[in-house]
């Protein structure tokens, strides 16, 4: 364990910020912007950060268990895996959006074409009825 005296500025800042973040999370939960399981997730994350700040040797032990070089390496590898996963999620979302856009564009295209034909037909009918009206008037005379 590290006492307050030994703690570096980074770890101190990390703990303070984590408490701040936790308070924000609770407030969001209170005003209903966060669901219970989301709140739980954030508690786990920030409590985790606090633990690591107080016991940085966690990573050293973990690295020994996993057989990876240094404690920091775990963060790097874990971070990269997380990044790849998040990137994959973004990629899937973008692809879905592209498809949605095409669906919209297609609907607009067909709707406009149908509308145009309908307008042309109405104009045509108006012309025809105008012509027959003129014809009737002429014949009456």
């Amino acid at each position, binding site marked *: 364990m590290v006492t307050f005296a030994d703690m570096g500025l980074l770890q101190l800042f990390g703990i303070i910020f984590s408490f701040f973040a936790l308070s924000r999370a609770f407030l969001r939960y209170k005003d209903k912007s966060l669901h219970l399981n989301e709140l739980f997730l954030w508690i786990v994350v920030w409590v985790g950060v606090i633990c690591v700040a107080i016991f940085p040797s966690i990573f050293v032990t973990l690295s020994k268990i996993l057989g990876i070089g240094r404690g920091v390496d775990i963060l790097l590898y874990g971070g990269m895996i997380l990044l790849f996963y998040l990137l994959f999620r973004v990629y899937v979302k973008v692809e879905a959006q592209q498809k949605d856009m095409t669906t919209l564009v*297609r609907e607009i295209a067909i709707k406009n074409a149908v509308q145009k034909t309908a307008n042309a037909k109405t104009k045509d009918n108006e012309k025809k009825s105008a012509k027959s009206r003129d014809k009737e008037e002429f014949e009456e005379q």
Partner: protein
Amino acid sequence: MTMQAEQKNKDIWIVIAAYNEENRITQVIASLKEQGYQNIVVVDDGSKDKTAAVAEQAGAAVLQHVINRGQGASLKTGMDFALQNNAEIIVTFDADGQHQANEIVLLTKPIINGEVEASLGSRFLEKKSNVSWHRELILKGGAGIIWLFYGIKLTDSHNGFRALKRDALQKLELKADRMEHASEILEQIAAKQIKYKEIPVTITYTDYSLQKGQSSLAAFGILWNMIKNKVLR
């Protein structure tokens, strides 16, 4: 034209995907009308030029994509429109003059007489076209991969000159927006067990169409899409 031929041409719809083709589209539409085709729909894929207006003047039905979505998306829009208008046979035709209007009958004949549900144009069945060696290599390679992935043996893996019967088209799930649509339709034809046949057609390469068209390297992008779909579908 005979009454029978006229009737047939009434149910045949030509679907053209066009992007910035104001210079060529009039000739293409004219050549189709000359052959007697009455139902021509041009899908303007967000062109920056006057393609839509020009096509309409030339006598085609025009659908406009507000933004560019790709050839696959455009053809599907056109095909949906044709189906809505009771098309019996749908023919996909290029906007840049690479296809011959007088060869459409070669594609529609086997469908009309019930031999097949889909006619696939091939530029290699009879050596009528002047294909560059690298393009031929890529296309033949593509055909090999198509056979590997989908189990259908073709001589030309990427040919946009195709005809489909209404029922067959309705069975296909076409979602590809860009150039990979040409492979997707083959995958679907195999998956839905549509009866098909390759028909020799002429692809006319001009400086214009080559400059506008795909580089042979685009094939790798299509291959990537094929692999992706095979894994995810």
